[in-house]
């Protein structure tokens, strides 16, 4: 027998009869026929389990069943099922869940379109115990390695290339409870490509005993196993971090920097010595900014490169020197205002291995902000890191950049900091196409590689263009919500962007930004559209005879 395209791997244990029947039916009703179902009964004592599995095996030759003599737990049973698998890809299906009838067909099409894909995942929703009511559709972003380190967002349905699953040793008992997350982390470390199928194709049954039903209370150990799985993953890939659970948000994790070395960071601050009212006090913005860096940062190895307009008052420069001492370097800038040119000039005068672009109307909040950003920026696959910026009154000014109609915007601008967004996305480190240049860390090597900031864009979009160039060079852009700073940009400031600036961006990046990988066709303003709720009922149109 030739090997099938998909081996569906399902460990079974004491599954209620109607639930087991529904699972089997959902596989048999797949519109894509080239599959096998590898079932391992983990020594269930309920007699109906063996009877139902036996009948299913007799009924369809693609269904194969093995029975364990002793109960070994989810990892042992899953590994037994993996050992039975002969397919090119392995699809993970829990014994109490259901597949959408077109699940395998749509995954097969996505894999066909991306022959190098080693891992595919789909959207999912939850069903009640009877399988009648669908709720909580999870419309996921496209592949985001950074998000997978802070949330097991790919979860169901996961389809992995079998050769890679075997290469990494299958499921690891050390991470029981989060064994699937560990497996996906290991496989994606080696995957050439990952694809996302943006359709709800998996229905996760919310039972009293499942994480879908009761969350952390159902399997408290699973959340700790998840933390250990990410920690082990960070060590394997050389991300210098310690993983922490978010106690208030089950399933959300945070990376805390644990740097083994402190590369020099050059903080590039373009300024003209402007004064503004901050907290009912007139301040010179750049002095306030530099003071906050010097007084609040826990990182030791940095320099501050102030690129100052010729019009900057000498008193300001003298004050900066008094605040920052030897750390300060002032570079005079003589030409007309051009943010990109000023940053490029600063970079040319910088000594650091890492560069931090910083507006002068910024104030540090989190003392480990430089460590946090360096943790990401040092990684060879990462091009830029952005932070969460808030206004003086605590509202969000920047939580990443998202594109709509090919043009960038700031989602959640003006919302409270505590806003959890959709599926906790405001609290998760994640990959975006771009972040603001008001506070952006990048390696000097990456900066040189893509030719720095575009001086053709003196005011707007130069940061966005820079991030998109990094993306085109195969580097990821990271948004880290745990790096927090004040941005004293006026909340009433109109974002005046000239038509030619928009045209520039569209002309150069239309293809990359036409569909933002973070946005989802089923989401609007952080909420699932009607189509997402009805995803389980959507079938492709059949031709009438």
């Amino acid at each position, binding site marked *: 027998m030739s090997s099938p395209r998909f081996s569906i791997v399902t460990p079974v244990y004491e599954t209620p009869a109607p639930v087991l029947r529904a699972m089997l039916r959902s596989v048999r009703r797949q519109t894509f026929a080239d599959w096998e179902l590898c079932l391992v009964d983990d020594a269930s004592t309920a007699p109906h389990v063996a009877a139902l599995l036996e009948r299913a095996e007799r009924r369809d030759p693609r269904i194969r069943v093995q029975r364990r003599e002793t109960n070994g737990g989810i990892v042992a049973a899953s590994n037994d099922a993996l050992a039975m698998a002969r397919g090119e890809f392995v699809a993970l299906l829990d014994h109490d869940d259901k597949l959408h009838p077109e699940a395998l067909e749509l995954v097969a099409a996505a894999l066909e379109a991306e022959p190098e894909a080693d891992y595919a995942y789909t959207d999912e929703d939850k069903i009640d115990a009877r399988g009648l009511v669908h709720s909580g559709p999870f419309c996921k972003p496209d592949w985001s390695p950074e998000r997978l380190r802070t949330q097991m967002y790919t979860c169901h349905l996961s389809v992995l290339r079998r050769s890679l699953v075997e290469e990494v040793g299958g499921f690891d008992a050390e991470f029981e409870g989060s064994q699937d997350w560990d497996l996906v982390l290991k496989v994606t470390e080696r995957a050439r490509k990952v694809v996302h199928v943006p359709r709800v194709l998996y229905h996760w049954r919310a039972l009293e005993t499942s994480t879908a039903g009761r969350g952390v209370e159902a399997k408290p150990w699973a959340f700790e196993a998840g933390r250990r799985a990410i920690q082990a993953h960070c060590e394997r890939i050389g991300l210098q971090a310690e993983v922490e659970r978010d106690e208030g948000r089950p399933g959300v994790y945070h990376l805390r920097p644990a740097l083994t070395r402190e590369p020099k960071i050059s903080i590039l601050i373009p300024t003209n010595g402007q004064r503004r009212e901050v*907290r*009912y006090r007139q301040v010179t913005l750049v002095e306030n900014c530099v003071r906050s860096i010097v007084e609040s940062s826990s990182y030791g190895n940095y320099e501050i490169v102030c690129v100052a307009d010729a019009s900057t008052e000498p008193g300001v420069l003298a004050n900066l020197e008094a605040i920052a001492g030897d750390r300060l370097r002032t570079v005079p800038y003589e030409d007309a205002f051009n943010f990109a040119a000023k940053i490029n000039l600063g970079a040319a005068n910088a000594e650091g291995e890492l560069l931090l672009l910083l507006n002068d109307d910024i104030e540090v909040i989190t003392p480990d902000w430089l460590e946090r950003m360096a943790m990401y920026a040092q990684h060879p696959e990462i091009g830029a890191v952005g932070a969460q910026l808030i206004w003086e009154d*605590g509202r969000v000014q920047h939580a990443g950049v998202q594109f709509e109609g090919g043009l960038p915007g700031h989602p959640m601008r*003006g919302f*409270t900091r505590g806003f959890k967004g959709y599926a906790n996305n405001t609290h998760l480190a994640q990959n975006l196409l771009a972040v603001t240049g008001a506070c952006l860390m990048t390696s000097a090597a990456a900066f040189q590689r893509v030719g720095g900031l575009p001086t053709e864009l003196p005011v707007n979009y130069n940061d966005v263009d820079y991030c998109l160039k990094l993306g085109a060079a195969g580097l990821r852009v990271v948004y880290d919500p745990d790096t927090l700073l004040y941005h004293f940009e006026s909340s009433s400031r109109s974002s005046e962007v000239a038509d030619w600036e928009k045209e520039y961006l569209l002309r150069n990046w239309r293809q990359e930004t036409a569909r933002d990988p973070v946005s989802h066709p089923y989401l*609007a*303003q952080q*909420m699932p559209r*009607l189509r997402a709720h009805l995803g389980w009922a959507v079938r492709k149109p059949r031709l009438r005879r």
Partner: protein
Amino acid sequence: MAEGELAREKQEVERLRGLLIARDRELGEALGRLAELEARSGRLTGLAKKLLGGLRRS
């Protein structure tokens, strides 16, 4: 002006600044929630319109 009086005035200025900053935080919290709820209700209104439109057509 006596030194003591100057110090008291400075203290009062700081107290008033503190009050204003706290008021801004509260206002920010309210404005933020308002923005979230408006976005949500805008979305729900759109959804309801769509559903009603669909029902009328059928």
